[in-house]
């Protein structure tokens, strides 16, 4: 087994502010994902990374940057926070073959 840690658990920022969310995993999984969870809209993929230093855009990448400097960590940056993107951001990982994704506990973003 393994653990996925997301920090912070709650993130409060001002409109227009640049904000960074972090994810750490000890599964030793190759692929990591960032999803945004909005009520009634499901899980939408923002970015994913299949190995260290790789980045792939998902369906919702506009307004976000990502960074995968180490296999075990994956960061997401909101480049300019907007009130309409208050949501829960979930990090996930999967091993080679990728059939099962393991999710972290999430970061809840509030924009004032």
């Amino acid at each position: 087994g393994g653990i996925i840690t997301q920090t912070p658990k709650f993130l409060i920022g001002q409109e227009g502010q640049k904000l960074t969310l972090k994810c750490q995993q000890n599964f030793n999984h190759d692929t990591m994902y960032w999803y945004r969870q909005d009520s009634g809209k499901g899980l939408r993929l923002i970015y994913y990374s299949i190995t260290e230093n790789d980045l792939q855009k998902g369906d919702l990448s506009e307004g976000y940057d990502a960074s995968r400097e180490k296999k075990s960590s994956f960061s997401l940056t909101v480049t300019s926070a907007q009130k309409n993107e208050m949501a829960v951001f979930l990090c996930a990982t999967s091993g080679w073959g990728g059939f099962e994704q393991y999710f972290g506990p999430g970061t809840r973003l509030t924009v004032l």
Partner: protein
Amino acid sequence: GDSVTQTEGLVTVTEGLPVMLNCTYQTAYSDVAFFWYVQYLNEAPKLLLRSSTDNKRTEHQGFHATLHKSSSSFHLQKSSVQLSDSALYYCALNTGANTGKLTFGHGTILRVHP
């Protein structure tokens, strides 16, 4: 692109009765795999069921689902729901890429009442 459609919104069921949560999909790929994830209140989503074999029933924790490629469906069923089954359920599609990238539906909330 790929898409997954689930039963909309909230499904309310009386404890002990059966339930079916619908999931249909559209994809141009024939090599597909399907997943049901469950998310309990204040917890992370976790895998409930998965299948990539056409017409084969898959079961876990009393839930079952059968992938039917002929009707593009992977409905989730349980014959007798419990209060503890109340949660948010997501259906998801993988189209064979080794990255494991999934396309999720919008989710269905199942509320079981006494």
